[in-house]
């Protein structure tokens, strides 16, 4: 008899709980006590807590224009990304909402959507997004731009794709993949004037940054056991969190189950104009709701945006 060894090897990853953007932050925030001046994670009233039975969890990820010492929970939200994560399949959908979208803000008339954070904090911000797109996020995660810069610096370089080339004193970005440090990443997130699509292109680039951050966090946490637990300790030391720690753990563990190659990033389109002398975006609400409806239950977008 011929003796032949046969070996089959298969591997599968399943994570049945979630949260996306926060692990990214855990890595990056500088060490300090928890304070809403750097970053904050809150559960939305009426939203579902992350649970093992959930298939999809939605996080509203915000970049605040808060300056040092100001609360990110009371300052304008200048980067607005709605992130849906499928805990069962590892798919995710990122929907970029232009900050100047002129929309109904519950109880506060019509205004730019980024003003909702000033008027009513993360709960009103979530309500404004829900009114706009027809979906209430489960969590709101907010970071200041300067906090985000330090975060990225802690895990740099971040490999980010750019459809366009541009250069400013803070950063030079080539078309294609770029290796960005913290300062360059923040420049990339804020760049608008050099992009033909203005606000819309900037929102798209912010989605690309989220994907790049997720990919990098996964790389780092796969270096050895216990990396997530270590990062969460840092996260809690630097972030205002109103979730029970077990919920935070499940949320963070879930983000690592998202496969960056299964993430679709879209931007809510529209047209620009002025209201009362201020530049605004008249978002295509019908399209926004269509994107959300298609991805609501599974965080996937068959056929793309």
């Amino acid at each position: 008899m011929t003796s032949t060894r046969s070996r089959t090897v298969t591997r599968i990853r399943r994570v049945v709980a979630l949260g996306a953007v926060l692990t990214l932050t855990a890595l990056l925030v500088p060490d300090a006590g928890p304070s809403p001046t750097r970053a904050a994670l809150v559960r939305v009233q009426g939203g579902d807590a992350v649970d093992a039975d959930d298939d999809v969890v939605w996080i509203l990820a915000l970049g605040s224009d808060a300056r040092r010492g100001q609360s990110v929970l009371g300052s304008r939200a200048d980067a607005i990304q709605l992130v849906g994560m499928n805990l069962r399949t590892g798919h995710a959908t990122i929907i970029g909402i232009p900050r100047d979208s002129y929309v109904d803000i519950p109880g506060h008339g019509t205004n730019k959507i980024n003003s909702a954070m000033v008027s009513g904090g993360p709960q009103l911000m979530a309500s404004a997004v829900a009114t706009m797109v027809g979906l209430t996020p489960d969590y709101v995660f907010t970071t200041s731009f300067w906090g985000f810069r330090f975060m990225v610096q802690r895990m740099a370089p971040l490999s980010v794709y750019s459809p366009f080339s541009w250069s400013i004193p803070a950063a030079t970005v080539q078309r294609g993949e770029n290796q960005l440090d913290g300062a360059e990443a923040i420049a990339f997130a804020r760049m608008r004037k050099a992009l033909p699509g203005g606000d819309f292109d900037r929102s798209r680039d912010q989605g690309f940054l989220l994907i790049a951050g997720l990919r990098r966090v996964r790389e780092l946490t796969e270096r050895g056991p216990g990396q997530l637990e270590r990062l969460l300790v840092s996260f809690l030391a630097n972030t205002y969190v109103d979730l029970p720690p077990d919920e935070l753990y499940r949320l963070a563990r879930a983000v690592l189950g998202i496969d960056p190659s299964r993430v679709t990033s879209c931007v809510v389109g529209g047209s620009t104009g002025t209201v009362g002398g201020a530049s605004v975006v008249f978002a295509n609400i019908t399209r926004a709701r269509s994107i959300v409806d298609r991805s609501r239950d599974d965080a996937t977008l068959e056929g793309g945006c």
Partner: protein
Amino acid sequence: MAVLAAAALGGCTDDSDSSGDSQPGEGGTVGALGLPAEPAEQRTQVRKVWGRWPGDDDSARTRSLQRATGRVVGGWIDRAFVAVDYPASEFDGAFATFTRGAAAQARRDSWLTTNQTLGDRLVDAVPVKRTVSVIAFAPKGSAVGATAQVALVLQGVAESGQRRKLSVTGELHLTRVDGRWRIFGYDLQRSVHAPELRGSSGSSGGGG
């Protein structure tokens, strides 16, 4: 932040078999069907607790964490692989220590999360390696989440006398639900080694 040394649970193990490639009977008693007479007992250790953890590696708190997490993981290993009346094609109760959502997913992945693909061809199976290494997250002095690294090597024998070696390694993700530890996610790898088979089978999870 507490850094914990290994705390062993259970006595007789094949701890020296880090590769999991030892053959039945090597260094031990060979029982019926050529399988080891003494199954490896589960060895659980708490390697590290991140956060505020007042206990050291030998504290009652650490031992309690070790027992609780070891029991949850062990419950799955027993019902899915070890405490099974072979030949078997059903693995009822294998996911009793999983959260409801994780159990539903694990049932869909039963080719990986149980011994389903080999079970109906085996007449007996004995664990020769069974280790659980826990890293926990305890931000406020109480562990609320944990990663359990698992290494299980199971020696099985078919009615024809052909032997199979099944290895299941990877991570289980644990959290506390209503005060009880539960498995809510997994990242597992499975391999089947059939040293006496002709040719090779390449099907994933097919088990040769």
